[in-house]
Each structure stands twice: as C-alpha cells, then as structure tokens.
C-alpha cells in the first residue's frame, strides 16, 4: 500500500524554559520534545504511544502549532503543495488550520460551557467565515447525526451531556470545517471503557467516510492496537521505534517497546513481565547517549557514549537502539529473527 505523505515532521524540538528570580533568569530547559522526525501518510492512523509525561501531547500540540516549537520543521501537503507550517504568518496559518484539527482529551473542559452545542460546533466555521447562518446550522445538525447524537441537541448547553456525548460533540466540532488531518490527543482516556469502544468505532467509521488522517495519541496500548495502522513509541521526548502495527507488536526491536508490550495484560496467559527499574530521567538533564540507558536492562558502555542512530530494521520498521539486531528480547514470544 503506497500512500503519499500528508504531514512530515523533521527534528522537531519543544523546550520549556525554567525561569527563576525576579529577572526571569533562565536556569534550565525541560526538553519535552527532543528532536522528533515522523511522516504521517494520507488516510492512515498513526498511533503515538508512551508513558505519561513523555511529551506525546506536547508533540501533538506543536504539530498544530498551538505552541510555538523551539526548533524543527513541519511540512503539510495541501492540495499537492508542500507547506512549511512553521514559516507561515498568522493569516496563512489560519487557512492551513482549516485542514488540521484536534480532538481533546478532557470532554469536560474542551467545550465552551457558555455556548450552545451548535455554537461550539460551528465555531471553526464562524472564525473562518464559511457559509451563512442557515447552512452552518444545517451542517451542525448533520454532524451531530453523523457522530450519533440527535439533531435536537443543537440548542442545548454542554452541561446537560455525559462525557461520551460531550466527546462526540468535540469530534463534531473538529470535523466541521472538513479537515484532512486530525490530532486526537487521548480522546478516550477520560471515558468509561464501554464508551471508549463506541468512540473508537465512531472515529474509525468517520475516517472511512471522510478520508481522514489521524495522529492518535494514547498511553493505552490496547486502544492504540485497535485503531492504528502504524505505531510510534515515544520515550522522554524521542521516538524510539516506529513500524506497521502487526510488525511492531509481534516483533519489537527496542527494549522499551518490549517492556511496554509486556505490561499489557493478556487473558489466559501467564505474564512474563519486564519491570523497568527506577523512574524516568529528569527531562531537564537528559542522560548522555541513549536516553533509555538508565533503565534499560541490556545497557552497555557504548549506550552511555553514543546516541543510537535511527535505523531501518526491515521495510518500514525503524528503531533507535545500538543492539537491536543482537538482543534477544525475552518478553517476546515467537520471535522470528533472520
């Protein structure tokens, strides 16, 4: 399946300065995203997985330029034209924004409580001057039905809805200006498990109907496994491994992926869990060489000295580890090694 690239991220960095004292002296930087390169293909769902605080959401926001990234490039293919997102001025940025939207994590704070459901949904249309009052209303109603809510809910306020219903409204809002690319930032992690499945199925259905491309951020491997075409694993602001879903899940090359996978409970199987020692390193003083070496059970001297290169393993499968070809990752069964 050969697809065109829709979004290309090159060496993206997002640092947050830590300031101290009355003169705001800069005493350090939190390296939330530390040199991420990714390609997201048209009509695919790229799952981005990693533990809390690894920079997943920051990356998602930086891609949409909701925060100004510190360094790097983002390219967006809009109508066969490659646009460098970070170089746009405010006016051109708005045009591009119409093609990239976001679904937020917390359905309770992502809707404006002071506006009706309809006003929430048509906000992007109003801001971008699309359509008139009647056509916006019709569109909002259509969208509500598309996300599985009743058209009559348009004049209600968000406070009368449940979490799942609110998230559906949030999805309708993201879809209202017909974007190509959507960043879904943990869209189901605030919801009950039964509702999670409904929302995931809804997203899948909408993707088919509207040819959407998703960057799907989650800490839940189960969710990622269910929705993604490809999976990227993130650790401390870096992508450590990326590959096709089945390939990556069955045949991981990075020790961190291995540890993540082993943490997923599987019914009917005795778990062979790999428990990582210690906690994540301080994002202000990242370890030298490989960032994972402080917790990696296989770390050697070389890991502290040299940053591992980003290497292709097979096909579209990449991993950043010095010993990816030689390690016998023990958490993984049925390992087919060439």
């Amino acid at each position, binding site marked *: 399946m050969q697809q065109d690239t829709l979004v290309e991220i090159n060496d993206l960095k997002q640092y947050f300065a830590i300031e101290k004292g009355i003169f705001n002296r800069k005493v350090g930087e939190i390296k939330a995203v530390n040199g991420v390169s990714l390609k997201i293909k048209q009509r695919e769902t790229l799952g981005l997985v990693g533990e809390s605080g690894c920079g997943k959401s920051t990356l998602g926001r930086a891609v949409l330029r909701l925060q100004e990234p510190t360094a790097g490039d983002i390219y967006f293919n809009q109508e066969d034209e490659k646009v460098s997102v970070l170089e746009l001025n405010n006016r051109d940025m708005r045009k591009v924004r119409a093609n990239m939207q*976001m679904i937020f994590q917390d359905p309770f*704070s*992502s809707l*404006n409580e002071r506006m009706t459901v309809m006003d929430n949904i048509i906000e*992007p249309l109003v801001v971008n001057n699309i359509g008139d009052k009647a056509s916006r209303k019709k569109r909002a109603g259509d969208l509500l039905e598309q996300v599985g809510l009743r058209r009559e809910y348009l004049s209600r306020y968000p406070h*009368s809805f449940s979490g799942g219903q609110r998230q559906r409204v949030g999805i309708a809002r993201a879809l209202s200006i017909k974007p190509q690319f959507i960043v879904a930032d943990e869209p189901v992690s605030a919801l009950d498990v039964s509702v999670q499945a409904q929302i995931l199925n809804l997203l899948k259905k909408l993707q088919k109907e509207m040819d959407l491309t998703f960057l799907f951020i989650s800490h839940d491997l189960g969710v990622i496994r269910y929705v993604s075409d490809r999976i990227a694993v993130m650790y401390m602001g870096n992508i450590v491994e990326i590959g096709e879903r089945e390939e990556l899940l069955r045949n991981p090359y990075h020790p961190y992926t291995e540890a993540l996978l082993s943490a997923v409970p599987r019914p009917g199987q005795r778990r062979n869990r790999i428990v990582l020692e210690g906690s994540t390193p301080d994002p202000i003083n990242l370890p030298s060489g490989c960032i994972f070496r402080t917790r990696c059970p296989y770390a050697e001297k070389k890991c502290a000295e040299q940053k591992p290169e980003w290497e292709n393993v097979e096909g579209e499968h990449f991993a950043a580890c010095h010993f990816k070809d030689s390690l016998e990752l023990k958490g993984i069964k049925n390992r087919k090694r060439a």
Partner: protein
Amino acid sequence: MAESKDSILKKIGNYIKNIFSKNKKDKYERLEYASQSQLIWYRFKKHKLAAFGLTVLAILYFTSIFAGFVAPYTHVERIGDYKYAPPTEIHMISEENGLRTPFVYSYSKELDPETFQYEYVIDKSTEYSLKLFVESEPYKLLGFIPMEHKLFGTGDKDAPVFLFGTDNLSRDIFSRILIGGRVSLFVGFGGVFLSFIIGSLLGGISGYFGGVIDEIIMRAVELLMSIPKIPLWIAFSAAVPRDWTAVQTYFAITMILALVGWTGLARVVRGKLMSLKNEQFAMAARAAGASDFRIITKHLLPAFISYLVVHLTLAIPGMILGETTLSFLGLGIQPPAVSWGTLLQDAQDLTVLADYPWHLIPTAFVIVTVLMFNFIGDGLRDAADPYSSK
C-alpha cells in the same frame, strides 16, 4: 365552511394540549436547555438574604430616581421658619376619635425663657390628615414630566411633614436624603463601570500575553495599591476646579474613584485569564483559527463573567463609601448639590449632634445600602459557584 370550523377546533385543541404539556414539562428539561446565566439566576432566586437585599436596593434606587415625586420638598427649598425642626410624629390615635387614619399635628416655635433657645411645641388643636397623592405646586418629574402631585403630605402649609426633621437652613432632611441618593447611589455604578473597563482591559492584556507587558502592568498596579487611598483621592479632587458645575464634579468624582479602584479587578482578571488560557476550550478555539481578541472576549471573559459580576457587586459599596468620604471631607460634591456625604458634613459638629441627632439618619442609609450590596454579592457568589450544594 364546515371544514374550516373543524380546523379551527383542531387548532384550539392543539393549543390547549400545548399549554398542558408545557406545564407538565419536566423541570429537568428546562435545566438542560438553560444557559449558565440562567442556571445562576435560578440559584440566586433561592438565596433569601440576597433576594431581600435586592428588594431593599430596588426600593432605594426607585425612590431616589423618582425623588421629585416621593420627596415632599426639594433639596434646596427652605420651608418657612422651621430651623432644626425635629422629625414629625405621625399619629394614628386621635384624642377625640380614637383610632383613625394617620395624621400629624402642626409645630409652633417658642422661646424657652431659661435657656434662651427656641423649642418646638406641638399644637394639638388641629389634626392634619396625611394624604396620598396630595396636590402640590406644579413641577417636572425627572426634568420633563409635568406633575402637580406629591406622594404624600397634608396639603396644608401650616402642617409640614418632616419625616427626618430639618437642618440649620430649615430644609427637609428626608427630601435631601432621597435626592442625595441620586449622587451617592449612582456614583457606584459609574465608577464600577469605568474601573471594570480599565481593570478588565489591563488585566486581560496582562494575563493573556504575559511577559514584559504583564510585568509592567502588575508593577503599576502594586505602585497604585501601595499609595494610601485617602491622600490619593484628596490629591485628585484638589485638581478638580472649584467652578465646575455639579454634574461636572460628579463625573470627576466618578473618574477619581475608578482610577483608584481598578487595580483589584485587574488582578482578578489577570489571574483568571492566566489559568483559563491553557484550558482545552481555549486551545480548541485557537485550533479553529480564532484570533486572540475573539478568544479573550468570546471564550475567556464569558467563562468567568460570574466572578466579575460578584467582584463588581462587592466593589460598588466601596465606591459609595468613597464618594461619601470625599464629600464628607468637603472634597467631593459641593453645596448646593447634595449627596449623602455632604449631608453628613452637617453632622460633623458635636453640638449639632447632641441637640439634633436626626442629622445622623443619612448614615443609616449608607450602612443599609452597603450591607444590601454585600448580601447580593454573597448570593451571587453562591449562585455562580458550580460546586455549591444548593
């Protein structure tokens, strides 16, 4: 013809059905379609003390707006020779006829041969009935409605009604309080409105953009807050030319109060904006391509407008007290214009206070007004708090 009759009957039937279904409509359904401000209003109405405050204030404002009709006299009118006349007693029980409609006796002044002071003696020979909508000299209500009646009075020049007595120039204090309320009660609104604009603008800029602008504005706020209020007021009002008209002075006072009063509000707005600008709904608006101005005015300010309303309600009494203080010190409204502060100026003299204690009555109006505003602010705060149990 028969058909149209049927259709009319049907329409009426539907109409009745609608009324019934509307009445039966669940309370919960109403809540689901209610906006935030409606929800706040529902809760506010349940707050008894606040409702009481609102009622009292409504009466106060109403009477002082229509003071021309309610007050028996004007604020500058000298009534005969009634200097320092005590409050008129209103009687219900007549010596001859027993219980009857309210009436008053007339006063007469007599010299006390021992103290050489004039004293008022009640002349019980005639009972003057108090009448509603009594005829009076023609006047213009609010400056343009021609009227020939006052709310109450005896209709007889020999029997004046001084509910709160008179002052040293034989002016009716009750009338002066009502007319003074026009300045004192409304200076709060004007001042709060102005300080609301200044405060939310500067606080908004400060909180939303942060950085150097924030630093400058906040230091300015702190500087302004560190200057003692009264000297600052005095300095400002010393700059107001003496020959300005009452209206000009009034607006000058409003400006002075607002210029000093916006700082607290700016801080509140700044803090709220700082916490709200990173909320997901603000981020969603930014992702939709909304401008900073739209995000602030359409998403962030409405999100805490209830806090602002509470803050403003609680700020009004401060303004009223400020005006009273300034006028009391002789720096605010200048006679013959009248406000509660200038009325209290007459009460500065200890001998006046000892002999004619009714000069203190304006204080009660100030206290009641301030208290009622605080009740309302309290009620609003409870109603606006989404976590309150009520």
